C-alpha cells in the first residue's frame, strides 16, 4: 500500500508541532454477502473498503483523520491539516521503522475465495431445507452469509510496523413461524475468524437450523411473560451478553479513564459475587473477536478482568491509558480506518463455576429460565442496562414448566454482578456484533449457565 520510506515521511510530519505520537492505519478489506430467501439466492453484493486513518497524540489530546485517497500527496496533505491543529515545535523524532512479527494464529485453512460458490450454496441450502421441513408452521427461512478479509498495516512513530490479516465468515439463519395473523421469527448466527473449514467441520447446519425452527414455533405458541421481579437463570453461550453490557462496557478505559464509569477507581475491590470470574481474551484461536494484534499494533492478550468477585483489570488502549498511567493491553479496536480507535472488548466471558445446569434449575422455586437472549444496551455512567429474552421458560418448583415470550430484563451493572448466586460448569461462547464509539466490531460473548437471585422482568403478561 505504501513504502516504508514514504510512511516515515508522513510520520515525520505528524510530530512537527510537538506531538509525541503519530500513527498510520492502512486498510484493504474485501467482503461479500449473499442473501437466500426461501432457499434461493436473492441478493449478492461485494465491496472493497480501502483507505488510511492518521492519528496524532499530544499528551492528553488526540486528532484523527481519514481518507480513501491514499496517494502520497493526499496523505501528506491530511497529515499537515491534522498537525496544524496543535501549536508547538518538534520535540521528538520518528524511530526507525521495523516490522514486529508474531506467529499468525488465526489463519484461514480454506479461504472463502477458494471454495466454489456451488459448494457454499449447497451447504447453506441444507440449512434452509432442515428448517423449512421441520414443521408446516415454518413459513419462511432466510439465510445471510457474509465473509470478509481485512488486511491491516500499521506504522507508528515508536518505530513499529505491524501487519495483520483477519478472515471472517458468519451465517445468520432466520426461521419465521406463522399461525393465522401471528408471526414469530427466531435466528441463529455462528461465525468465526476462520475459513470455510469452520462451517464444514464445526457447524452442523442442519442441527442448528432445526433447533432454530423449533424455538420459533415454541415462542409462537408461548404465553406472554409475566412482569415482575424474580430470579433469572441465564443459559450458557449468548447469555454472556449480560456481562458484556452490565460489566464489559463500563470496564473500557474510554469510560474508566474519565471517571465516567461505575467501575472507575475500583481495582482490587469486590464488584461481583465470589462465584464470578471474568475474562477478555483476544488470543483465542480463530475466535470471532480475536486478532494477532489490536488496531493500534499491540499484541492481544488474555486479560483477567474479575477473579472471584474482585476487579483485576480494565480494557485499555494506549491513549486512554495515559490518564490511568497504564499501557494499552491489546484492547484497542476500530471497525475500519474510518473510526478513531478506542478500548473495546474482544471475546469476553464469565468463567466456569462449580454448579451444574441441573442443580441450578432444581434449586429454583420460581423464576425465569432465559434459554436464549437477543441483544441489549447499557449506559456506562449509571450502569443501567437492558436485554431481551428471545426464548424463555418459567421454572416452578425446580422444573422447567412452560415457554414465555416477550421478556426484557433490566437492572444495574453495579448490583447485578453481586446478585449472581450460582454458576455452572458448561461455558460456551457465541458471536455478536458490538456497536460503540469506534464502530461495529465482531465480538464473542460467553458464560456458563448462571442464576441472578433477582431481576426486573418486563413482559406483556402483567402480574
Amino acid at each position, binding site marked *: 500500500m505504501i513504502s516504508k520510506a514514504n510512511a516515515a515521511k508522513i510520520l515525520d510530519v505528524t510530530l512537527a508541532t510537538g506531538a509525541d505520537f503519530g500513527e498510520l492505519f492502512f486498510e484493504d478489506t474485501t467482503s461479500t454477502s449473499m442473501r437466500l430467501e426461501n432457499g434461493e439466492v436473492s441478493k449478492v453484493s461485494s465491496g472493497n473498503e480501502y483507505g488510511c486513518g492518521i492519528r496524532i497524540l499530544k499528551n492528553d489530546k*488526540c486528532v484523527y483523520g481519514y481518507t480513501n485517497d491514499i496517494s502520497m500527496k493526499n496523505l501528506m496533505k491530511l497529515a499537515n491539516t491534522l498537525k496544524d491543529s496543535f501549536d508547538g515545535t518538534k520535540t521528538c523524532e520518528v524511530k526507525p521503522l521495523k516490522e514486529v512479527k508474531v506467529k499468525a494464529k488465526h489463519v484461514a485453512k480454506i479461504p472463502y475465495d477458494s471454495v466454489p460458490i456451488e459448494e457454499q450454496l449447497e451447504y447453506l441450502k441444507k440449512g434452509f431445507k432442515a428448517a423449512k421441513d421441520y414443521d408446516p408452521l415454518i413459513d419462511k427461512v432466510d439465510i445471510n452469509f457474509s465473509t470478509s478479509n481485512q488486511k491491516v498495516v500499521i506504522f507508528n512513530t515508536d518505530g513499529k510496523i505491524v501487519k495483520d490479516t483477519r478472515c471472517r465468515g458468519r451465517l445468520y439463519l432466520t426461521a419465521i413461524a406463522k399461525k393465522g395473523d401471528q408471526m414469530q421469527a427466531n435466528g441463529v448466527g455462528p461465525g468465526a475468524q476462520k475459513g470455510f473449514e469452520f462451517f464444514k467441520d464445526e457447524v452442523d447446519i442442519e442441527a442448528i437450523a432445526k433447533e432454530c425452527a423449533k424455538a420459533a414455533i415454541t415462542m409462537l405458541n408461548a404465553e406472554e411473560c409475566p412482569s415482575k*421481579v424474580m430470579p433469572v437463570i441465564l443459559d450458557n453461550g449468548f447469555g454472556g451478553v449480560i456481562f458484556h453490557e452490565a460489566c464489559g462496557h463500563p470496564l473500557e478505559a474510554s469510560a474508566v479513564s474519565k471517571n465516567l464509569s461505575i467501575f472507575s477507581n475500583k481495582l482490587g475491590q469486590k464488584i461481583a459475587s465470589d462465584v464470578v470470574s471474568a475474562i477478555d481474551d483476544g488470543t483465542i484461536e480463530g475466535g470471532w473477536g480475536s486478532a494477532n494484534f489490536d488496531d493500534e499494533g499491540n499484541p492481544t492478550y488474555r486479560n483477567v478482568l474479575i477473579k472471584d468477585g474482585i476487579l483485576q483489570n480494565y480494557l485499555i488502549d494506549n491513549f486512554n491509558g495515559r490518564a490511568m498511567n497504564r499501557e494499552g493491553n491489546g484492547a484497542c479496536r476500530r471497525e475500519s480506518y474510518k473510526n478513531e480507535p478506542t478500548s473495546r472488548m474482544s471475546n469476553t466471558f464469565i468463567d466456569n463455576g462449580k454448579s451444574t445446569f441441573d442443580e441450578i434449575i432444581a434449586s429454583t422455586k420460581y423464576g425465569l429460565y432465559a434459554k436464549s437472549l437477543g441483544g441489549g444496551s447499557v449506559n456506562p455512567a449509571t450502569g443501567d442496562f*437492558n436485554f431481551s429474552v428471545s426464548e424463555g421458560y418459567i421454572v416452578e418448583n425446580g422444573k422447567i414448566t412452560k415457554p414465555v415470550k416477550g421478556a426484557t430484563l*433490566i437492572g444495574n451493572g453495579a448490583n447485578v454482578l453481586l446478585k449472581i448466586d450460582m454458576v455452572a460448569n458448561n461455558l460456551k461462547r457465541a458471536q455478536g456484533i458490538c456497536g460503540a464509539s469506534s464502530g461495529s466490531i465482531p465480538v464473542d460473548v460467553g458464560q456458563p449457565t448462571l442464576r441472578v437471585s433477582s431481576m426486573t422482568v418486563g413482559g406483556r403478561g402483567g402480574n
Partner: protein
Amino acid sequence: MNFNKIFLLAKEKGIEDLELSISKSAKLSISIFHKKVESYNVAENETLSARGIYKGKMGCVYTENLTNQSTDFIIDEIIKNASIIEEDKPAIIFEGSKKYHRMKTYNDSFNKVPVKDKINRLLKAEEKALAYDKRIAEVASLSYEEEETRFHLINSKGVNLVQKVSDAMCVCEVLAKENEDLKTGFEYQIISSYDEFDPDKVALEACKSAISQLNAEPVKSKKYKILLDGKVMSSMISSLKRSLSGEQVNRNKSYLAGKLNQKVFSSKVTLLENPHSKKYPFFYRGFDDEGVATEKKKVIDKGVLKTYFYNLEAAAQAGVSSTGNGYNSGASIGIGTSLLILKAGKKSKEEIMQKMKNGLYITDIQGLHAGMDGLSGNFSLQANGYLIENGAIVKPVNLITIAGNLFDLFENIVDVANDSTITYSGIETPSVYVRNLVVSGK
C-alpha cells in the same frame, strides 16, 4: 477515476445496463472534555457503488479504491454476483423521471467560520453547563460535527443527477449527581445553517433533563396510561417503517400486508412523507438512489393505510410505480424514507396530561434493537420518564420496562399533542397519548 471507461468495459463484457453512484463526503468533528479539545477529526471519503444487469440479473459492488485499477474489479464483481442470483425477479436500471423537484440544500456558512470559533463556542457552553447547577458533576461529552455530501448518479439510460447537502450536529451528554445517585442527560441539535448553532441551549437542556431524573425510582408493576415523548414516538415510527416496506409486503412478511385502504390505526394517526421540506433541508431528497423523482405523500391518513414504500424492483413485483423510496443499502438498493411527519394535534402536552389525570410520561427508551420485534411488533423496552398524578408531573421514574405491541400502540392512540420535535432519524413527531401499556417496575 475514468467513469466512461467503466461504461465502455461493461458493454464489452456483456453488461446490458450499468449505474454508478458516487457519494463524496467531507467531515469535521470536534469534541471537548474538561476545558480542552479532546478529539478533533477531519475526514474525506468517496465511495463508488455500481449496479449492472448481466443476463437479466442485477449484480452489485462498491469500492473506496477510486483509482483506475478498480475498473476490472467492478466489472468482474458485477458479473460474478449477478451470476449467483437464482431468484426470478425484475432487474431495472431507470430511464429517469420527467420532472424533478429542485431546491437549494447546500449551505456554505459552515466553512466560512474558523475552527477556533467553533471550539470556543463549545468551551463556553461547557462552562455554562457546569455553572448551571451544583449537581452537574460532569459534562461527559460535548461535540460538534459538520458534514457535506455530494451524491452523483449516472447510468447507461441517460440519468445524470447531482445532489449536494450540508449540515451539522451538536451533541451533549451531562452527568448529574446527588449523594450517590447518578443520572445522565442527553440532548442534540441538527443544524442547517451555522447561525442556528446553539451549544449553550443544547448543554442546558441536557442539564435540565439529567437533574430532573435525579432520585428516580421504579413504579409499581401494572398497566398505566402512557404519554410518549416525541423522541420516543420517533423510535416507534422508525420501527413501523419495516412493515411499510413494499419489499416486506411483497414477501408477506409484514403485518400491514393486504391492508391497503383499510383503517389500521387510530384516526388520530396521519403520517406523511415530505422529501421537500424547507424547514429541514438536511433531509431533502429531490430523487432517490435509483434516480426516481421523489414526492410528498400521505402514508397513513386518519388511520387509513394509503401506500407502502416502493423501490423499482418491489414496485414492479407488485405491479405499481416506484414511490421514490429506493435507498442504497450497502451496494444494493433497499427501501428507505426521507422526512416522515406524524401530524400534530391541537392540545399542548400539559392539556393532555390533565386529560390523562394519572399515568406515565415516558421520555426515553433503551435497547430498541433487541427489545422490539419488528416482525410481530411485540416489544418490551427499558424506559424512564415521570409519574403523572392529577394531571401533573410529580416525580421521576426509571428502571422500568414498558411492554406492548407496536401495531396495537398505533391503534390505541387517544390523542396527539402539538409539541412536534425533529429527530436525527428524519422523523418529526409530537408527544402521543397511548391508552395503556404494561409496565414492569417493582
